[in-house]
């Protein structure tokens, strides 16, 4: 029992949700949970806040599904909701202490050797990401981690393509600088 999983297209699933088949929405959630979750975790820097933002985004998407005018691009439309939601959480989270507990490795605790190095590298990256200005981090993640085209990112963020390219460039430069600093600490 539980959530129905059907290998249908986004458009088909959206059509079924609109017809009252909520199980189809569960299938959409399952389909996008991990990928969007990855963006949320790296953007916000806190696993719990990220899951809350993700959950909130899925609920908002359901409630405004009538405004998804191109169901075949449900994923991209959902991304836009999540990007906006992460902006709100990011502002709040910046004012709180955050735990960089993010994956099973960290939860299991790094013992020594390779695991310790990996946790240290993970922490260094997350700290460096956290130091980026939010709009730089957002552009960098959407371009290089989520592999979106600049035109798609422009549609999601409302920024122009030139501005986005500049933000990604700055993000790359600053990440490189912060990581070099971390190596010398």
């Amino acid at each position: 029992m539980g959530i129905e999983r059907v290998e249908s297209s986004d458009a088909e699933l959206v059509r079924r949700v609109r017809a009252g088949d909520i199980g189809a929405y569960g299938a959409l959630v399952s389909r996008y949970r991990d990928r969007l979750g990855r963006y949320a975790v790296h953007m916000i820097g806190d696993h719990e806040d990220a899951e809350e933002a993700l959950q909130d985004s899925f609920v908002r998407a359901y409630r405004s599904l009538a405004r998804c005018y191109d169901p075949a691009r449900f994923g991209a439309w959902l991304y836009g909701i999540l990007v906006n939601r992460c902006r709100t959480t990011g502002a709040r989270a910046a004012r709180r202490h955050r735990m960089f507990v993010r994956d099973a490795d960290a939860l299991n605790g790094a013992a020594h050797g390779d695991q310790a190095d990996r946790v240290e590298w993970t922490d260094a990256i997350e700290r460096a990401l956290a130091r980026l200005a939010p709009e730089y981090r957002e552009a960098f993640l959407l371009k290089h981690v989520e592999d979106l085209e600049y035109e798609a990112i422009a549609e999601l963020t409302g920024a122009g393509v030139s501005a986005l390219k500049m933000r990604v460039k700055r993000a790359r430069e600053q990440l490189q600088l912060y990581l070099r600093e971390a190596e010398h600490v």
Partner: protein
Amino acid sequence: MFERADDVVERVIQHLRRPVAIDPGLDARVLREIAQAPPTNRRGWPLWSALAAAAVLGAILIARPWSRDETNRSDLLQFVFVAPRAASVSLVGDFNDWDPARSPMQTAQGVWATAVRLAPGRYRYAFLVNGVDWRADPGAPTARDDEFGTASSVVTVGGRGS
């Protein structure tokens, strides 16, 4: 050892592209939240669709009347169980004398639901499927002290600030 700047960034990108573990229970929480507050602009989506959204299991708080007196306070909880092929499902527990006739559940699209008003306290319960099959609630804590050989679950209704 000197590493080219681009190589550092590429390493970062490869690291960030690794899958991140997201709690699979999030799916259920999304559907539960949808079920708690059906959208107002549903345009003809039937009420049962909202309940069917709770293909997640676990009691859902749906109403809490305001009251100064915590001892008289009670919460209305909705219990949901998915069993598409069941002919009947009853909710039985400490709140209804373990009587299958007291809280028969209604079904739509294989999702069975009923609502029970509970005063603050800890309650053991289970679902009785087709009158013979005892099922615990996968979405709720397990009742460990089961002395009768069948699984049960627990729901706790809090007092202050819950």
